[in-house]
């Protein structure tokens, strides 16, 4: 066992709006050493840090747009979001729920604040990730996994340190409920002040930790403040986290696909030709239809 060290701790980049319903810090791709290749298979991460939306009769959000070649994963920490797609899928996610949409060969979808929630308004906090798909699965049929908070498997940590909620992958033998196309670990570590948790992932897995609530220290040395993202180096296979206050930490670790990436807007494929084909297919209605 060798310690996985911290490569960098990134402050949240200046926020921008996606549509009018998501005020996000875009950590991936971009910034310093966090491009798609380095972060593979986590090719996009938008973090809507806590933000208060005032009451609105017309729900805010993002209108109809396409995706092809990857999965979108929305993790709701606060607030409620309704989702619809051109395959007839849809649903509402609220606090603790996860919407795991495999866009694969292509869907149109739209995401809005859930109507009743929008009327009341309130604190909103979410993470949206794009998880890349292996070449062989990019054109597989779209699917949708609605993961309710109470179905997520939990591991109670020793010494009353807190709980690990395993969304995907595995923690100390407990499996996540989400099915994935390549090895991906995704979990929320809910630690009490002073609580410790250790993690083991292969050295080559790309690994990040996002401080959703509170702050924590990695390997006894690196402090990660609220809303900051720690990128782990690929130099070891285990690390330890200690909460400096009651904390919620999103932990992601995935095996890089190591396949060529061609990306434009909402399409992530392996070649430029496949991107051009995605654009043509979108223009010609091959992603279906969804009313705005």
């Amino acid at each position, binding site marked *: 066992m060798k310690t996985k060290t911290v490569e960098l701790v990134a402050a949240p980049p200046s926020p921008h709006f996606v549509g009018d319903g998501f005020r996000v810090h875009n950590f991936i791709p971009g910034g310093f050493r966090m491009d798609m290749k380095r972060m593979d298979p986590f090719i996009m991460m938008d973090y809507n840090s806590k933000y208060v939306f005032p009451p609105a009769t017309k729900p805010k959000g993002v209108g109809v*747009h*396409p995706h092809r070649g990857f999965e979108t994963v929305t993790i709701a920490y606060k607030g409620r979001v309704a989702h619809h797609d*051109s*395959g007839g899928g849809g649903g509402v996610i609220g606090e603790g729920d996860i919407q795991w949409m495999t866009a694969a060969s292509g869907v149109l979808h739209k995401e809005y604040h859930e109507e009743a929630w929008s009327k009341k308004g309130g604190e909103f906090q979410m993470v949206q990730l794009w998880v890349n798909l292996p070449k062989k699965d990019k054109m597989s049929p779209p699917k949708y996994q609605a993961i309710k908070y109470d179905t997520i498997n939990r591991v109670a940590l020793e010494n009353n340190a807190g709980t690990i909620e395993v969304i995907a992958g595995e923690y100390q033998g407990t499996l996540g409920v989400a099915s994935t196309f390549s090895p991906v670990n995704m979990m929320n570590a809910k630690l009490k002040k002073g609580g410790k948790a250790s993690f083991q992932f292969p050295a080559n897995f790309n690994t990040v930790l996002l401080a959703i609530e509170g702050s924590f220290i990695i390997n006894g040395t690196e402090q990660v403040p609220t809303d900051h993202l720690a990128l782990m180096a690929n130099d070891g296979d285990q690390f330890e986290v200690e909460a400096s206050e009651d904390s919620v930490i999103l932990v992601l670790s995935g095996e890089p696909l190591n396949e060529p990436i061609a990306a*434009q*807007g*909402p399409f992530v494929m392996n070649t430029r030709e496949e991107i*051009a084909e995605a*654009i*043509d297919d*979108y*223009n*010609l*209605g*091959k*992603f*279906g*239809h969804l*009313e*705005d």
Partner: protein
Amino acid sequence: MSSGKFLTYIASHLNRDEAEISSIVASCSFKNVKKGSYLLQANEHCNHGFFVETGLLRQYSIDKKGKEHTISFVPEDWFVTDRDSVFFNRPSKYFIQAQEDSQVVLIDQNYEKLMSEKIPNFAEFNNRLLHNHISQLQERIDLLLGATAKERYLHFIKMYPDILLRVPQTMVASYLGITPEGLSRVRKDLALKNFKK
């Protein structure tokens, strides 16, 4: 600051070494324009041609009722100007606005004069650009007068493959001369025909 794309574009179209024309191209000014800001507004005189190195511009007019009509979208490697205003020295009727953060080259008459003097095939190249533009405008008039909404749309996606992903559909509808509902119907009909679950 230029990304160098304009120089590469001109050199390759003129079949010249970049070194040969770099000092003339360097006489052009470059501008970073933020999304939403204008390179030209109605009633101003247009003094430049614009070449888009990165980003996206849109040329449009506003009618007496306040409705926008998109004349053209101008993505990377495209030129735009108001030839009427530049050539006849008249106030423009058009707006040229950045739809995305863009890097733009401002081309003035000095550049054209220098290029014409120093580069023998520049006039021919410039003439070709002008005729391309006229040919495009002719086709656009023909489509607006005689083509169905679907035909206009199919022509649009060939000419501007990725624009639907970059601007609101209302702007595309205003380019096609149809209502946003009309555009939505065309796209829905295509989806019903082409979408295989």
